[in-house]
């Protein structure tokens, strides 16, 4: 009685697992979510797009990772002043890895499609563990004033 049930459930599982490998699952745990869609962020560089006031705060509309969670060093798509712009996450409120600082706000640096920063200076402290992506974000690190 139990065996055929077991075998049927096993078969079901096998089918499911094969379909899951072709899907991209999104993170469903709210606990592990740092920056996701619809989070309001703070732009910390001195670009005009980031600093001119608008009646709506800049929001994340897409996170470029496998699951939709953005941590420090991930790229996101922002909606600012009615336009879309890519950005790099440089700090979030959620406690991250050991030996990485926690920030008081979700900080973001505006970036072009090729990875060049839009602004010319970043006054807010940037975590030093971004340096391991030296190749991609070297220009962003170059315009940063303070490291933490």
């Amino acid at each position, binding site marked *: 009685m139990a065996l055929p049930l077991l075998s049927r459930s096993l078969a079901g599982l096998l089918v499911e697992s094969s379909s899951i490998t072709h899907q991209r699952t999104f993170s469903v745990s709210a606990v592990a979510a740092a920056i996701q869609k619809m989070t309001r962020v703070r732009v910390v560089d001195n670009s005009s797009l980031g600093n001119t006031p608008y009646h709506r705060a800049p929001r994340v509309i897409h996170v470029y990772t496998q699951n939709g969670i953005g941590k420090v060093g991930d790229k996101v798509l922002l909606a600012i002043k009615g336009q879309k712009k890519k950005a790099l996450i440089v700090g979030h409120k959620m406690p991250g890895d*050991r030996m*990485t*600082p*926690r*920030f*008081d706000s979700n900080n973001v640096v505006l970036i072009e499609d090729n990875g060049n920063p839009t602004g010319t200076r970043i006054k*807010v*402290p940037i975590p030093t563990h971004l340096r391991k992506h030296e190749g991609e974000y070297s220009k962003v690190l170059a315009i940063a004033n*303070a490291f*933490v």
Partner: protein
Amino acid sequence: MRIEKCYFCSGPVYPGHGMMFVRNDCKSFRFCRSKCHKNFKKKRNPRKTRWTKAFRKASGKELTVDNALEFEKRRNMPVKYNRAIWDKTVEAMKRVEEIKRKRQARFIMNRLKKGKLLEKEEAITEVKKNIHLIRAPHAGKAKQLEAKMVQKLQEDVDMADEDL
């Protein structure tokens, strides 16, 4: 690698320990353990929380101005590497640490000496107040009276001698 100081308790934060928090005014705070972090989040003032070094220094319970403490201050000028300087610095560090500990201990001992004097005075006043528990009220009165009479008689004799 650098051993930082905890913002709240001023204890050492070794690498791999504690937490760092960066505020929106770009000031960074390091904490050695969650105790200090939680107190910080409760907005407690370290200068008023009795167990912190900040409180002890602010209320004069510990050595604050001393030459031995100048060595700990952070310098932002890097020194050019020189092997001799490196070796000497290590030895100097050991000696300075020794001297610092002795001075701090002496400071605290001096502070606590006053307590001993006060204690002694307190003990004396207590004994005087409660002497009736130890000695009967009219214990030596008879002998005292006798001694006084003897003294008076002696004085009379002396005066009589002078007159003569």
